[in-house]
């Protein structure tokens, strides 16, 4: 019985890891990149999105339950999983083995990026307390700063790339481990679709970075004068 429990726990752990990668973490990634890409559409649309989100009721709980805990869980289990294997792409130089290797490496990159990203955005926001300021001007000023230096741009581009790759490739892995893809041809076709999907996400992310880098926004009150 003890053995069975351990096995059931293991199964639950891995399956949850797989699931959280898709929902909510992956879904949040898509939402986050999409929302931010409003920046390329226009400044006020972008600001509006920030304010809309930041004025959600129970935001902090939503963030903790649907974003922070799942990401932390996904990361920790991911680290545990990474240590189960031993990379060997130098010996067995195959495409999928590269993907396997990059999936693990990108996981590490994302984790480091998230520590940085949250350190510059979420943490000060929490420290400052919500009532003290409007979210949009604060976050926009942070972003302005981030994208002023080349280093900052590179950090964000690497972070975005790691995340989109990890998600797109993870989706493929999800389809494999849940048995959605079985045939070899189906596996190949799906990986093409997921590559395309990953590219689209990357482009969306990069577009935002480029927009920020080229046109820093003037920091001002969010609600337009005309309201």
């Amino acid at each position, binding site marked *: 019985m003890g053995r069975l429990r351990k096995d059931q726990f293991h*199964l639950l752990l891995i399956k949850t890891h797989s699931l959280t990668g898709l929902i909510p973490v992956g879904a949040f990634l898509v939402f986050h990149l999409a929302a931010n890409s409003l920046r390329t559409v226009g400044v006020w649309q972008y600001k509006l999105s920030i304010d809309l989100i930041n004025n959600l009721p129970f935001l902090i709980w939503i963030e903790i339950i649907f974003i922070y805990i799942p990401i932390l869980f996904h990361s920790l289990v991911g680290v545990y999983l990474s240590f189960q294997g031993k990379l060997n792409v130098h010996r067995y130089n195959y495409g999928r083995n590269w993907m396997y290797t990059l999936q693990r490496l990108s996981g590490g990159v994302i984790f480091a990026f998230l520590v940085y990203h949250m350190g510059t955005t979420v943490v000060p926001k929490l420290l400052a307390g919500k009532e003290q300021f409007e979210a949009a001007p604060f976050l926009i000023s942070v972003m302005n700063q981030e994208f002023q230096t080349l280093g900052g741009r590179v950090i964000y581009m690497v972070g975005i790339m790691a995340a989109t790759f990890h998600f797109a490739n993870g989706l493929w892995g999800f389809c494999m481990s849940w048995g959605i893809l079985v045939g070899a041809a189906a596996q190949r076709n799906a990986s093409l679709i997921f590559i395309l999907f990953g590219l689209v996400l990357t482009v969306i992310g990069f577009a935002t970075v480029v927009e920020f880098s080229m046109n820093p926004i003037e920091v001002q009150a969010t609600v337009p004068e005309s309201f």
Partner: protein
Amino acid sequence: MEDKTVIIKIRQQDDPDSASYWQSFQVPCRHHENVISCLQEIQRNPVTLDGQAVIPVTWDCNCLEEVCGSCTMLINGRVRQACTALVEHLEHPVVLEPMSKFPVIRDLQVDRTRMFENLKKVHAWIDIDGTHDIGEGPVMSDSIRAQRYALSECMSCGCCLEACPQFTRDNTFLGAATFSQVRLFNLHPTGALAKEERLEAVMGEGGITDCGNAQVCVEVCPKNIPLTESIAEIGRQTSLKMIRDLFQK
């Protein structure tokens, strides 16, 4: 074709607990000669490249035509059978090492008992009432037969495990060969009667969830077994079982 010679560099080890060391040999090499012939040549004339008489290298082999799975080793860093490794197609010098994911017995011999223990864990057989004459077997379409045949060619050589980044000496990962056998037996009408038991056996630690989808297994399988399809198929069967168990039990 002219007789040439070839240099063979071998990682040797006297017993499971001692350290490994390298020795090189120069052996004559004829047209279409394989690595086993070179090893046999060393047996007949165990003298190293620098002229020292030594104890011959030990290795495992049997059928010499890639159906028994014995002579699996690392040849120029890559896992494969020594019998089908034709020397004229290899980069020189030829470097031989024992498989790294299994305990070394001596020189190129390793202990692959783990593979066979895994077969026991996953109920890799069909339960029959007896061997007496109780008539024909189940009717089965030839396409199912063809699928089963492809899986049933697995000779437990261990290439897929050696090349798998998830399979290490310290973990309990079952590996592609084992998952493929689960699929093989679940495909048989009588074998399917023990399907649940087999699936349960691959749903724990070291089971199907631990596959990282690096898919090297299918690249190195000498029998071209569709291992990644088996993995995905077992992924499907276990996922469905999990959902069934969740909502039915």
